[in-house]
């Protein structure tokens, strides 16, 4: 049964994910068209959070495959448990079984190690499969992924073809470190995740740090939005905002305008490189503060 868009939207907020208006539609569409969803956006905009929220919406298990350069089928799909296989071969050596029987035995389910992709298609309840930072994997892996995403079956030479028991909901994320293939893009729905606007970011702060002052949360969100507009090398993400908000709350700051010192000193929660730090001087910080507060 597919959920309506409104239900998804409601459940997202129930799960603590403050959604922008369109992401609920994208998630609904994913369900409706049975297509994977590709999320792109800068680092730190909360792409991975979407997957967690989606799992909560459907009360499904979240299976995550983190991609990296050199990721191959053995790490992503399945692997044989060689140590046990060797052991099994040794223990059967004396029994006089023929080679075929041994082969059959050691290439059975017992010796198969499930990796995320295989796990995702063998669950009874469709899980949410998050393929994180797919742009970090090699092109070859992408091609393999494409095959899996269109057929939802895997052939293991020693075992035969394994069909999906249930079709997982697939989310892919990309930071754009490499151009993804057209074929993969075509296969997927697309959603560009942007930094949250001030209002949404303030609501995120309030949701994550319930004790915080509403006024302060808005001020922080505005300040972060202003900082993001500066020409920085590393633009602070939502996680950084939350760190900063928690720090300020911990320091008992109630109004950013009153305590520019504290603002400047805690800025390292937002600014993570020396270069940006040098750029965001006390004067710049105060100018921004003057604008937002």
């Amino acid at each position, binding site marked *: 049964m597919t959920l309506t868009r409104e239900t998804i939207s409601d459940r997202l907020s129930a799960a603590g994910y403050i959604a922008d208006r369109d992401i609920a539609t994208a998630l609904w569409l994913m369900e409706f068209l049975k297509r994977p969803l590709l999320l792109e956006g800068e680092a730190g905009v909360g792409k991975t959070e979407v997957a967690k929220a989606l799992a909560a919406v459907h009360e499904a298990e979240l299976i995550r495959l983190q991609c990296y350069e050199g990721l191959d089928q053995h790490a992503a799909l399945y692997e044989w448990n060689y140590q046990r296989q060797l052991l099994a071969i040794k223990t059967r050596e004396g029994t006089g079984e023929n080679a075929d029987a041994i082969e059959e035995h050691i290439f059975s389910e017992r010796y198969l190690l499930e990796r995320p992709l295989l796990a995702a298609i063998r669950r009874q309840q469709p899980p949410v499969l998050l393929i994180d930072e797919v742009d970090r994997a090699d092109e070859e892996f992408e091609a393999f992924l494409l095959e899996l995403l269109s057929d939802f079956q895997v052939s293991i030479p020693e075992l035969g073809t394994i069909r999906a028991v249930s079709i997982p909901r697939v989310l892919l994320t990309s930071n754009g470190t*490499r151009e993804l293939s057209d074929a993969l893009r075509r296969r997927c729905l697309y959603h560009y995740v942007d930094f949250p606007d001030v209002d949404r970011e303030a609501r995120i702060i309030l949701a994550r740090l319930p004790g915080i002052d509403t006024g302060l949360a808005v001020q922080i969100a505005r300040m972060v939005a202003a900082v993001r507009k500066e020409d920085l090398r590393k633009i602070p993400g939502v996680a950084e905002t939350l760190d900063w908000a928690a720090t300020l709350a911990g320091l008992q700051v109630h109004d950013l305008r009153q305590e520019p010192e504290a603002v400047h000193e805690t800025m390292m929660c937002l600014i993570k490189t020396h270069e940006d730090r040098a750029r965001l001087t006390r004067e710049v910080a105060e100018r921004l503060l003057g604008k937002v507060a």
Partner: protein
Amino acid sequence: MVAAPRDNPDPIGAAAARQLADFARTLRDNGFRIGLGETRDALAILASSVATRTSSLKPALRSLFCATHSDWEKFDEIFEAFWRRRGMRRAQTLGGTAESAASRRRNAATSRATSGLPDHVKRFEDIGDAAGGRGRREGASSAENIVAADLRHITDPDDIARANALAARLARSMRARLVRREQVRRRGRRLDLRRTIHRNVSHGGTPIDLAWRRRKIKPLRLVVLLDASGSMNLYTAFFVRFLHGVVDAFREAEAFVFHTRLAHVSASLRDRDVTRAVDRLGLMAQGIGGGTRIGDSLATFNRWHARRLINSRTAVMIVSDGYDTGEPERLGAEMRRLRQRCRRIIWLNPLIGWRDYSPQARGMQAALPYVDLFAPAHNLESLAALEPYLARI
């Protein structure tokens, strides 16, 4: 395209389906890659509950039709322009009563027959141009081609052939570099247990026939940034040919041309016909006589292209005389950023070939600390001398 409405005409009516097909075509004209599958899915969306409100229909279609961030940014504008003029509401209610739908279908058919050309061509030209122009801003646009300088008098066929052959040779010598990914080989550093066991089942599991893994070789990627400013104009024509050879010979190569700003020209250079490819780089004409802003151009590159194009096995080749009209500090900072990203920076400077030249230009001074190889490039011989170095990268 015509097939899609015919496949599934019932739920929403043929006219709406046709409008959708037109919309898909408009998007395609704007550089979207949309296939039959997408159109069919869009019909399904139009027949579903989200189609009742524009606020939910737009994001749904956007997620479906967009494939890249640049699509994403263009979509809203095209959507608004298309459906607002076409009458969004009409499209939705068409499926309502069978009679009206049928009559409208007839109307649509007749109007189409009489008008001959699909009207969207004329109507959306302006939108297409606006959006297309924006998308192309980073590339060599056709508008710039018109003012192309006549570079043909330098197209001595022998020179071209030699430049291309040299580029191909350089490409061959530097295309290999080790990556982390391993592959199975007869000889290697590590035992591949998986294959070894599989191969030796017939020996009762005693590993006799061993399989090894070895690191795989992957081609080097080359990004060339060519200075096409006035001070370089004696050389640009030749280097454009070289650039063409590089783009042709490397599996992964990207080419940029800059003077006061940066243009991504790989696409124009992929033309097999050298003369035409060079002519298409009309942009260069604008550079001649203008100043060079190497720092700004590099900043543009670092900001918009570097992340996508540069990885740990990328060599960046800058061809420039280093006469920068911008601030040297900026150039230095951008060079440092670039250096952190890529594997090697090679700076080819045609002036080195001149006698008694020393890199005095302030821009050159600022950039030098980040350059791995600073080499002359005033003739084919000097380029050929690069080969042993490139092979070692």
